[in-house]
Protein backbone atom coordinates (compact mmCIF):
# COMPACT_ATOMS: atom_id res chain seq x y z
CA UNK A 1 0.00 0.00 0.00
CA UNK A 2 2.74 2.36 1.02
CA UNK A 3 4.66 1.48 -2.18
CA UNK A 4 1.68 2.21 -4.44
CA UNK A 5 1.08 5.53 -2.69
CA UNK A 6 4.70 6.44 -3.24
CA UNK A 7 4.52 5.52 -6.91
CA UNK A 8 1.38 7.60 -7.47
CA UNK A 9 2.98 10.42 -5.57
CA UNK A 10 6.08 10.18 -7.75
CA UNK A 11 3.95 10.45 -10.90
CA UNK A 12 2.21 13.50 -9.49
CA UNK A 13 5.51 15.08 -8.51
CA UNK A 14 6.91 14.52 -12.02
CA UNK A 15 3.84 16.07 -13.65
CA UNK A 16 3.96 19.11 -11.39
CA UNK A 17 7.67 19.54 -12.04
CA UNK A 18 7.17 19.25 -15.82
CA UNK A 19 4.43 21.88 -15.78
CA UNK A 20 6.59 24.14 -13.65
CA UNK A 21 9.49 23.70 -16.09
CA UNK A 22 7.24 24.42 -19.07
CA UNK A 23 6.11 27.63 -17.41
CA UNK A 24 9.68 28.54 -16.56
CA UNK A 25 10.78 27.92 -20.16
CA UNK A 26 7.90 30.02 -21.53
CA UNK A 27 8.71 32.92 -19.22
CA UNK A 28 12.39 32.58 -20.14
CA UNK A 29 11.53 32.68 -23.86
CA UNK A 30 9.23 35.69 -23.48
CA UNK A 31 11.76 37.58 -21.37
CA UNK A 32 14.45 36.87 -23.96
CA UNK A 33 12.36 37.70 -27.03
CA UNK A 34 11.31 40.97 -25.43
CA UNK A 35 14.96 42.03 -25.60
CA UNK A 36 14.66 42.03 -29.41
CA UNK A 37 13.92 45.73 -29.27
CA UNK A 38 16.37 46.50 -26.48
CA UNK A 39 19.51 48.52 -27.10
CA UNK A 40 22.33 48.02 -27.81
CA UNK A 41 21.53 45.85 -30.81
CA UNK A 42 23.78 42.76 -30.79
CA UNK A 43 24.33 42.75 -34.57
CA UNK A 44 27.89 41.47 -34.56
CA UNK A 45 27.12 38.62 -32.19
CA UNK A 46 24.04 37.74 -34.20
CA UNK A 47 26.17 37.42 -37.36
CA UNK A 48 28.64 35.24 -35.46
CA UNK A 49 25.78 32.96 -34.40
CA UNK A 50 24.36 32.82 -37.93
CA UNK A 51 27.82 31.62 -38.96
CA UNK A 52 27.99 29.03 -36.20
CA UNK A 53 24.48 27.54 -36.45
CA UNK A 54 23.52 28.32 -40.06
CA UNK A 55 26.67 28.04 -42.14
CA UNK A 56 27.93 25.32 -39.81
CA UNK A 57 24.93 23.11 -40.56
CA UNK A 58 25.04 23.75 -44.31
CA UNK A 59 27.15 20.78 -45.37
CA UNK A 60 25.24 18.18 -43.38
CA UNK A 61 21.92 19.62 -44.62
CA UNK A 62 23.07 19.48 -48.26
CA UNK A 63 24.24 15.87 -47.90
CA UNK A 64 21.03 14.80 -46.11
CA UNK A 65 18.92 16.63 -48.70
CA UNK A 66 20.67 15.01 -51.65
CA UNK A 67 20.34 11.49 -50.30
CA UNK A 68 16.72 12.02 -49.20
CA UNK A 69 15.76 13.17 -52.70
CA UNK A 70 17.65 10.26 -54.24
CA UNK A 71 16.10 7.60 -52.03
CA UNK A 72 12.61 9.06 -52.46
CA UNK A 73 12.95 8.84 -56.23
CA UNK A 74 14.36 5.32 -56.09
CA UNK A 75 11.79 4.01 -53.61
CA UNK A 76 8.89 5.88 -55.20
CA UNK A 77 9.73 4.66 -58.69
CA UNK A 78 9.62 1.01 -57.68
CA UNK A 79 6.28 1.52 -55.95
CA UNK A 80 4.66 3.63 -58.66
CA UNK A 81 5.87 1.51 -61.59
CA UNK A 82 3.88 -1.45 -60.26
CA UNK A 83 0.64 0.40 -60.98
CA UNK A 84 1.98 2.14 -64.10
CA UNK A 85 1.94 5.65 -62.64
CA UNK A 86 5.65 6.48 -62.70
CA UNK A 87 4.65 9.76 -64.37
CA UNK A 88 3.72 10.91 -60.86
CA UNK A 89 7.25 10.38 -59.57
CA UNK A 90 8.02 14.12 -59.77
CA UNK A 91 5.13 15.26 -57.54
CA UNK A 92 5.75 12.30 -55.23
CA UNK A 93 9.32 13.39 -54.59
CA UNK A 94 8.56 17.11 -54.52
CA UNK A 95 5.56 16.98 -52.19
CA UNK A 96 7.22 14.55 -49.76
CA UNK A 97 10.29 16.76 -49.64
CA UNK A 98 8.67 20.17 -49.45
CA UNK A 99 5.83 19.33 -47.07
CA UNK A 100 7.36 16.83 -44.67
CA UNK A 101 10.86 15.50 -45.06
CA UNK A 102 12.58 18.82 -45.79
CA UNK A 103 11.48 20.63 -42.64
CA UNK A 104 11.63 17.58 -40.34
CA UNK A 105 14.93 16.04 -41.46
CA UNK A 106 16.68 19.38 -41.74
CA UNK A 107 15.41 20.28 -38.27
CA UNK A 108 16.61 16.98 -36.79
CA UNK A 109 20.05 17.45 -38.38
CA UNK A 110 20.04 21.02 -37.13
CA UNK A 111 19.26 19.85 -33.59
CA UNK A 112 22.19 17.46 -33.70
CA UNK A 113 24.62 19.89 -35.26
CA UNK A 114 23.68 23.31 -33.85
CA UNK A 115 21.26 22.68 -30.97
CA UNK A 116 23.57 20.43 -28.99
CA UNK A 117 26.48 22.85 -29.32
CA UNK A 118 24.31 25.75 -28.13
CA UNK A 119 23.30 23.92 -24.94
CA UNK A 120 26.84 22.73 -24.26
CA UNK A 121 28.32 26.17 -24.92
CA UNK A 122 25.91 28.01 -22.64
CA UNK A 123 26.25 25.31 -19.98
CA UNK A 124 30.02 25.63 -19.98
CA UNK A 125 29.78 29.42 -19.95
CA UNK A 126 27.84 29.00 -16.73
CA UNK A 127 30.32 26.51 -15.27
CA UNK A 128 33.18 28.90 -15.96
CA UNK A 129 31.14 31.87 -14.68
CA UNK A 130 31.37 33.74 -17.98
CA UNK A 131 27.75 34.86 -17.61
CA UNK A 132 28.61 36.62 -14.36
CA UNK A 133 31.65 38.15 -16.02
CA UNK A 134 29.45 39.56 -18.81
CA UNK A 135 27.09 41.02 -16.24
CA UNK A 136 30.05 42.58 -14.42
CA UNK A 137 30.92 44.35 -17.68
CA UNK A 138 27.33 45.68 -17.88
CA UNK A 139 26.46 43.40 -20.78
CA UNK A 140 23.09 41.70 -20.56
CA UNK A 141 23.91 38.01 -21.11
CA UNK A 142 20.31 37.28 -22.04
CA UNK A 143 20.50 39.69 -24.97
CA UNK A 144 24.01 38.85 -26.08
CA UNK A 145 24.07 35.09 -25.52
CA UNK A 146 20.48 33.81 -25.56
CA UNK A 147 18.63 36.14 -27.90
CA UNK A 148 21.26 36.10 -30.65
CA UNK A 149 21.22 32.30 -30.68
CA UNK A 150 17.41 31.97 -30.71
CA UNK A 151 17.04 34.46 -33.55
CA UNK A 152 19.90 32.90 -35.49
CA UNK A 153 18.13 29.52 -35.22
CA UNK A 154 14.75 30.93 -36.28
CA UNK A 155 16.26 32.64 -39.34
CA UNK A 156 18.79 30.06 -40.47
CA UNK A 157 16.56 26.97 -40.26
CA UNK A 158 14.04 28.15 -42.90
CA UNK A 159 16.98 29.01 -45.18
CA UNK A 160 18.54 25.59 -44.58
CA UNK A 161 15.20 23.89 -45.28
CA UNK A 162 14.84 25.76 -48.58
CA UNK A 163 18.36 24.68 -49.56
CA UNK A 164 17.53 21.11 -48.47
CA UNK A 165 14.40 21.16 -50.68
CA UNK A 166 16.21 22.47 -53.74
CA UNK A 167 19.11 20.04 -53.41
CA UNK A 168 16.66 17.16 -52.82
CA UNK A 169 14.59 18.09 -55.87
CA UNK A 170 17.65 18.11 -58.12
CA UNK A 171 18.91 14.84 -56.69
CA UNK A 172 15.48 13.26 -57.15
CA UNK A 173 15.39 14.48 -60.74
CA UNK A 174 18.83 13.01 -61.40
CA UNK A 175 17.83 9.58 -60.12
CA UNK A 176 14.31 9.60 -61.57
CA UNK A 177 15.11 10.91 -65.02
CA UNK A 178 18.77 10.17 -65.70
CA UNK A 179 19.03 6.81 -63.95
CA UNK A 180 15.53 5.28 -63.97
CA UNK A 181 14.45 6.74 -67.30
CA UNK A 182 11.25 8.59 -66.41
CA UNK A 183 10.49 11.16 -69.12
CA UNK A 184 12.10 14.44 -68.04
CA UNK A 185 9.39 16.70 -69.43
CA UNK A 186 6.65 14.72 -67.72
CA UNK A 187 8.62 14.69 -64.45
CA UNK A 188 9.03 18.47 -64.38
CA UNK A 189 5.58 19.23 -65.81
CA UNK A 190 3.74 17.08 -63.28
CA UNK A 191 5.83 18.52 -60.45
CA UNK A 192 4.99 22.11 -61.38
CA UNK A 193 1.36 21.12 -61.89
CA UNK A 194 0.85 19.39 -58.56
CA UNK A 195 2.94 21.52 -56.18
CA UNK A 196 1.17 24.68 -55.08
CA UNK A 197 2.13 27.75 -53.10
CA UNK A 198 0.30 26.29 -50.08
CA UNK A 199 2.77 23.37 -49.97
CA UNK A 200 5.81 25.65 -49.98
CA UNK A 201 4.16 27.90 -47.43
CA UNK A 202 3.45 24.91 -45.18
CA UNK A 203 7.09 23.79 -45.36
CA UNK A 204 8.53 27.22 -44.64
CA UNK A 205 6.06 27.91 -41.81
CA UNK A 206 7.03 24.64 -40.18
CA UNK A 207 10.71 25.43 -40.40
CA UNK A 208 10.28 28.86 -38.76
CA UNK A 209 8.48 27.26 -35.80
CA UNK A 210 11.08 24.48 -35.61
CA UNK A 211 13.88 27.05 -35.59
CA UNK A 212 12.31 29.04 -32.77
CA UNK A 213 11.58 25.84 -30.85
CA UNK A 214 15.13 24.49 -31.16
CA UNK A 215 16.61 27.87 -30.24
CA UNK A 216 14.43 28.32 -27.16
CA UNK A 217 14.77 24.74 -25.85
CA UNK A 218 18.54 24.58 -26.34
CA UNK A 219 19.30 27.96 -24.77
CA UNK A 220 16.90 27.26 -21.90
CA UNK A 221 18.47 23.86 -21.19
CA UNK A 222 21.94 25.39 -21.22
CA UNK A 223 20.88 28.25 -18.95
CA UNK A 224 19.22 25.95 -16.39
CA UNK A 225 21.91 23.24 -16.48
CA UNK A 226 23.48 22.34 -13.15
CA UNK A 227 26.84 24.12 -13.20
CA UNK A 228 28.99 21.00 -13.21
CA UNK A 229 30.60 18.95 -15.98
CA UNK A 230 28.04 16.23 -15.45
CA UNK A 231 25.16 18.69 -15.35
CA UNK A 232 26.16 20.16 -18.74
CA UNK A 233 26.42 16.70 -20.27
CA UNK A 234 22.96 15.77 -18.99
CA UNK A 235 21.43 19.04 -20.13
CA UNK A 236 22.86 18.58 -23.64
CA UNK A 237 21.44 15.07 -23.96
CA UNK A 238 18.05 16.21 -22.66
CA UNK A 239 17.98 19.22 -24.98
CA UNK A 240 18.65 17.06 -28.06
CA UNK A 241 16.04 14.48 -27.03
CA UNK A 242 13.40 17.07 -26.20
CA UNK A 243 14.02 19.05 -29.41
CA UNK A 244 13.79 15.94 -31.59
CA UNK A 245 10.53 14.81 -30.01
CA UNK A 246 9.04 18.31 -30.02
CA UNK A 247 9.92 18.79 -33.70
CA UNK A 248 7.90 15.68 -34.57
CA UNK A 249 4.98 16.62 -32.31
CA UNK A 250 4.80 20.20 -33.58
CA UNK A 251 5.15 18.87 -37.13
CA UNK A 252 1.99 16.83 -36.70
CA UNK A 253 0.10 19.79 -35.25
CA UNK A 254 1.12 22.19 -38.02
CA UNK A 255 0.45 19.61 -40.74
CA UNK A 256 -3.12 19.18 -39.50
CA UNK A 257 -3.66 22.92 -40.05
CA UNK A 258 -2.31 22.83 -43.59
CA UNK A 259 -4.29 20.04 -45.27
Amino acid at each position, binding site marked *: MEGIMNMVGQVGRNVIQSVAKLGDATLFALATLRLLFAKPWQG*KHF*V*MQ*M*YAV*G*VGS*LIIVVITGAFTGMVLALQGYHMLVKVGTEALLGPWV*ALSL*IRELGPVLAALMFVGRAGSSITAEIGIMRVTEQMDALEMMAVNPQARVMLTRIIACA*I*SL*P*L*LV*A*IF*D*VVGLFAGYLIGVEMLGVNGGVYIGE*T*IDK*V*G*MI*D*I*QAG*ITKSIYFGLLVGIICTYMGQRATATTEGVAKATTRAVMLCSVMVLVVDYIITSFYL
Partner: protein
Amino acid sequence: MSGYKKIEMVVGIFVLVGVMSIAWLAVELGGVGGLGSNGYKVIAIFDDAGGVRTGSDVMLAGVPVGQVISVTLKDNEEAEMVFNIKEGVLIASDATVSIRTKGLIGEKFVRVNQGSEEDYLAEGDEFEDTESAINIEDLISKYIFSGETK
Protein backbone atom coordinates in the same frame (compact mmCIF):
# COMPACT_ATOMS: atom_id res chain seq x y z
CA MET B 1 38.60 42.60 -37.74
CA SER B 2 39.40 40.91 -41.06
CA GLY B 3 38.34 37.58 -39.55
CA TYR B 4 34.95 39.03 -38.71
CA LYS B 5 34.64 40.56 -42.19
CA LYS B 6 35.16 37.09 -43.65
CA ILE B 7 32.47 35.62 -41.40
CA GLU B 8 30.14 38.42 -42.45
CA MET B 9 30.77 37.56 -46.10
CA VAL B 10 30.11 33.85 -45.60
CA VAL B 11 26.91 34.53 -43.65
CA GLY B 12 25.82 36.91 -46.39
CA ILE B 13 26.37 34.26 -49.05
CA PHE B 14 24.50 31.70 -46.93
CA VAL B 15 21.51 34.02 -46.49
CA LEU B 16 21.47 34.90 -50.20
CA VAL B 17 21.57 31.23 -51.26
CA GLY B 18 18.77 30.43 -48.79
CA VAL B 19 16.57 33.31 -49.91
CA MET B 20 17.21 32.42 -53.56
CA SER B 21 16.14 28.83 -52.82
CA ILE B 22 12.88 30.03 -51.27
CA ALA B 23 12.30 32.37 -54.22
CA TRP B 24 13.05 29.61 -56.73
CA LEU B 25 10.62 27.24 -55.02
CA ALA B 26 7.90 29.89 -54.89
CA VAL B 27 8.28 31.09 -58.48
CA GLU B 28 9.08 27.81 -60.19
CA LEU B 29 6.77 25.46 -58.28
CA GLY B 30 4.37 27.73 -56.38
CA GLY B 31 3.33 29.67 -59.47
CA VAL B 32 3.77 33.04 -57.81
CA GLY B 33 3.81 35.84 -60.35
CA GLY B 34 2.72 33.54 -63.16
CA LEU B 35 -0.93 33.42 -64.09
CA GLY B 36 -3.34 35.53 -62.14
CA SER B 37 -1.25 38.66 -62.15
CA ASN B 38 -1.86 39.61 -65.76
CA GLY B 39 -4.61 38.56 -68.10
CA TYR B 40 -8.33 39.14 -68.39
CA LYS B 41 -11.34 37.62 -66.69
CA VAL B 42 -14.28 35.96 -68.39
CA ILE B 43 -17.39 34.36 -66.90
CA ALA B 44 -19.16 31.10 -67.69
CA ILE B 45 -22.42 29.78 -66.23
CA PHE B 46 -22.79 26.00 -65.94
CA ASP B 47 -25.73 23.80 -64.90
CA ASP B 48 -23.24 21.57 -63.12
CA ALA B 49 -19.72 22.52 -62.07
CA GLY B 50 -18.91 18.81 -61.82
CA GLY B 51 -15.85 19.00 -59.60
CA VAL B 52 -13.99 21.95 -61.13
CA ARG B 53 -12.30 23.95 -58.39
CA THR B 54 -10.43 27.16 -57.96
CA GLY B 55 -7.05 26.63 -59.62
CA SER B 56 -8.26 24.12 -62.22
CA ASP B 57 -6.78 24.59 -65.69
CA VAL B 58 -8.53 26.25 -68.60
CA MET B 59 -7.32 24.67 -71.84
CA LEU B 60 -7.67 25.72 -75.45
CA ALA B 61 -6.69 23.07 -78.01
CA GLY B 62 -5.04 21.15 -75.15
CA VAL B 63 -2.80 24.06 -74.17
CA PRO B 64 -3.26 25.66 -70.73
CA VAL B 65 -4.36 29.26 -71.33
CA GLY B 66 -5.65 30.18 -67.89
CA GLN B 67 -7.04 29.14 -64.55
CA VAL B 68 -10.37 29.02 -62.76
CA ILE B 69 -10.25 31.74 -60.13
CA SER B 70 -13.68 31.23 -58.55
CA VAL B 71 -16.60 28.83 -58.55
CA THR B 72 -19.74 30.19 -56.91
CA LEU B 73 -23.43 29.39 -56.78
CA LYS B 74 -25.59 31.76 -58.82
CA ASP B 75 -29.28 32.30 -57.95
CA ASN B 76 -29.24 29.04 -56.00
CA GLU B 77 -29.39 26.93 -59.15
CA GLU B 78 -26.41 27.47 -61.43
CA ALA B 79 -22.65 27.45 -61.06
CA GLU B 80 -20.83 30.63 -62.01
CA MET B 81 -17.15 30.36 -62.81
CA VAL B 82 -14.66 33.10 -63.40
CA PHE B 83 -11.62 32.28 -65.52
CA ASN B 84 -8.43 34.23 -65.75
CA ILE B 85 -7.19 34.00 -69.34
CA LYS B 86 -3.58 34.81 -70.20
CA GLU B 87 -2.83 38.08 -71.91
CA GLY B 88 -2.66 37.66 -75.68
CA VAL B 89 -4.94 34.62 -75.91
CA LEU B 90 -7.96 35.56 -78.03
CA ILE B 91 -11.23 33.65 -77.65
CA ALA B 92 -13.97 34.20 -80.24
CA SER B 93 -17.24 35.52 -78.84
CA ASP B 94 -19.13 32.43 -80.04
CA ALA B 95 -16.69 29.97 -78.41
CA THR B 96 -18.17 27.38 -76.07
CA VAL B 97 -16.79 25.85 -72.88
CA SER B 98 -17.14 22.34 -71.53
CA ILE B 99 -15.91 20.49 -68.47
CA ARG B 100 -13.71 17.51 -69.18
CA THR B 101 -11.59 15.03 -67.26
CA LYS B 102 -7.87 14.44 -67.75
CA GLY B 103 -7.61 10.74 -68.53
CA LEU B 104 -10.14 8.31 -67.12
CA ILE B 105 -9.99 9.25 -63.45
CA GLY B 106 -7.84 12.37 -63.62
CA GLU B 107 -8.72 15.82 -62.43
CA LYS B 108 -11.34 18.08 -64.06
CA PHE B 109 -10.46 20.92 -66.37
CA VAL B 110 -12.32 23.46 -68.46
CA ARG B 111 -12.04 23.05 -72.22
CA VAL B 112 -12.60 26.04 -74.46
CA ASN B 113 -13.83 25.17 -77.95
CA GLN B 114 -12.74 28.03 -80.18
CA GLY B 115 -15.46 29.74 -82.23
CA SER B 116 -15.40 31.36 -85.65
CA GLU B 117 -16.57 34.93 -84.96
CA GLU B 118 -14.28 37.82 -85.74
CA ASP B 119 -14.79 39.66 -82.46
CA TYR B 120 -13.28 38.35 -79.25
CA LEU B 121 -14.22 38.08 -75.59
CA ALA B 122 -12.95 40.90 -73.40
CA GLU B 123 -12.69 41.51 -69.65
CA GLY B 124 -15.95 40.59 -67.89
CA ASP B 125 -17.65 38.98 -70.91
CA GLU B 126 -19.67 35.81 -70.59
CA PHE B 127 -19.57 32.64 -72.70
CA GLU B 128 -22.73 32.16 -74.75
CA ASP B 129 -22.90 28.42 -74.51
CA THR B 130 -21.62 25.95 -71.94
CA GLU B 131 -21.67 22.20 -71.68
CA SER B 132 -21.68 20.72 -68.17
CA ALA B 133 -19.54 17.88 -66.92
CA ILE B 134 -20.18 14.48 -68.44
CA ASN B 135 -21.45 12.37 -65.59
CA ILE B 136 -20.27 8.80 -66.00
CA GLU B 137 -23.03 7.48 -63.72
CA ASP B 138 -25.68 9.11 -65.92
CA LEU B 139 -24.07 7.59 -69.00
CA ILE B 140 -24.00 4.13 -67.47
CA SER B 141 -27.63 4.33 -66.27
CA LYS B 142 -28.66 5.55 -69.72
CA TYR B 143 -26.87 2.60 -71.28
CA ILE B 144 -28.49 0.09 -68.90
CA PHE B 145 -31.89 1.68 -69.40
CA SER B 146 -31.64 1.59 -73.21
CA GLY B 147 -30.58 -2.06 -72.99
CA GLU B 148 -33.73 -2.94 -71.06
CA THR B 149 -36.10 -1.40 -73.57
CA LYS B 150 -34.78 -3.42 -76.47
